[in-house]
């Protein structure tokens, strides 16, 4: 097995290392592949071709958004990257190996769902510790890790609350804390902020970028918002429907940290136009396939 030199420590404990927090990610863009989707088709039992010949490599430290009209298979692709479901053809590799390596130290994966997906019967702390319980991690530091995760999303006062006592945005943050507690290296997010109002969404976008930097995550982010994709990502992957496929891969080269100035800049508007045009082409192709 060839180990490429680690670009940063394998595990960065959330919030413990102020030196790495805020370091530009540009050096890691050429990092090793974290997840590699190669020639993948996905055909459901009912005959629907969800994905056709998809190629996508996500490298260490990247923030990649998957964008496309509904039915383009972006969520399916993300689920395959999470090891949920089998590919019909082609292969998916994690850290250049099979799914078995996922979960090992430095190769942890976490998934954030479209809705918060919390257990309503369990208090916030118990929800956050679920992945640790499922992995049978019982170390003495688990309580501390839960505290840290809640701290990072600003919910340290709400550990004993029940999910339904929280607002939608707060529930989503619990969901992110639950993903963080595993100290993931790869974070997969399926339209995590789609159901939230714009102000909450912008706030959570900024939180996410901050956490991404602080923790050295690699993120794959599914969204249907052009603005959100451009604002967050190094790369926006545009997909088309029927069959689901990648049609364009737009690099967003604006430097981080990005903030309010970036949102109103002409650079941002330019990227948005470019991605929107690609999306336009994607939609048109989908319609042609329909007729």
């Amino acid at each position: 097995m060839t180990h490429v030199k680690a670009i940063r420590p394998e595990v960065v404990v959330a919030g413990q290392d102020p030196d790495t927090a805020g370091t530009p990610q540009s050096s890691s863009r050429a990092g090793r592949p974290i997840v590699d989707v190669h020639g993948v088709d996905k055909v459901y039992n009912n005959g629907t071709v969800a994905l056709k010949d998809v190629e996508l490599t996500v490298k260490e430290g990247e923030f990649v958004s998957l964008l496309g009209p509904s039915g383009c298979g972006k969520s399916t692709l993300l689920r395959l990257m999470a090891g949920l479901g089998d590919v019909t053809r082609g292969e998916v590799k994690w850290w250049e190996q099979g799914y078995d390596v996922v979960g090992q130290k430095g190769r942890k994966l976490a998934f954030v769902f479209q809705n918060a997906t919390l257990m309503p019967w369990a208090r916030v702390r118990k929800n956050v510790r679920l992945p640790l319980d499922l992995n049978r991690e019982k170390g003495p530091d688990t309580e501390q890790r839960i505290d840290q995760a809640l701290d990072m999303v600003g919910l340290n006062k709400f550990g004993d609350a029940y999910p339904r006592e929280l607002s939608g945005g707060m529930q989503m943050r619990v969901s992110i804390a639950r993903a963080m507690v595993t100290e993931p290296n790869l974070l997969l997010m399926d339209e995590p902020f789609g159901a939230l109002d714009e102000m909450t969404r912008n706030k959570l976008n900024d939180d996410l970028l901050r956490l991404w930097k602080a923790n050295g995550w690699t993120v794959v982010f599914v969204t249907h918002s052009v603005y959100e994709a451009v604002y967050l990502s190094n790369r926006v992957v545009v997909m088309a429907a029927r069959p689901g496929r990648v049609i364009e891969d737009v690099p967003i080269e604006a430097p981080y940290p990005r903030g309010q100035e970036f949102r109103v800049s002409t650079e941002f508007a330019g990227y948005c136009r470019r991605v929107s045009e690609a999306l336009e082409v994607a939609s048109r192709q989908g319609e042609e396939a329909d007729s």
Partner: protein
Amino acid sequence: MKSPLLENERFVQIAAPLFVGVVFLLLWEAVVRATGTPVYILPGPVDIGKAFVEDWGVLFHSLLMTLKVTLMAFAISVVLGTAASLLFVQSRWIEVSLFPYAVLMQVTPIVAIAPLIIIWVDDTTWALTVCAVIIAIFPIISNTTLGLRSVDPNLLSMFRMYRTGRLQQLIRLRIPSALPYFFGGMRISTGLALIGAVVAEFVAGTGGTQAGLAYLILQSGYNLDIPRMFAALGLITLTGITLFALMVWLSDRVLRNWHESALKVEQ
């Protein structure tokens, strides 16, 4: 002017139905007296109340018998019903093969099979209990099975991502998700256990020290002791209401923090 008592939700909840009940009883007594209806046709509430006091010894003994059968049947239904549901969710095959028989058991009138069971089972108390179980178990099975299947698909995906075993899935996910459905089943089941106990006793017609409220009603009918008949009937109703209230209280206690059914939303 508004009285502060009338603003109190709890007070209204208790006082309003109580008021209706008292008015009904007064009207009843008035009609019985005004028309001079004989006691052996329709006794007034006062006569029934007298029977309650005078026959309390017999009534209470019968109540205990009926309650014993009801509670035993309910407990067995909960245990066996839950076990059956847990079995059903293990595999679609098991569910598909066995569920129709659970339905069959439910739709067969208990009155029609009670005589058979009374022949087969020697001990009367157990014979009655078996009859009551046959009708009380179904809501537990159907509700709990539905609950164990009603799991948030995303949470299930998460468990799959961590390659969690079936037992962990069951304990951490399926059982908590099923609780509201399970309690719903229990509410229906208590009532059915009581009905089963009473109906079976009507068919069995057991007397002596084993006599429950149903037998007391039969016997009072033969003796034209109609006030006592009403008193026994009243006790059955009261028992049913108490058991139901107990279930509501229990389910509210367990679910109050998280489930919609147990929440008080202020408008």
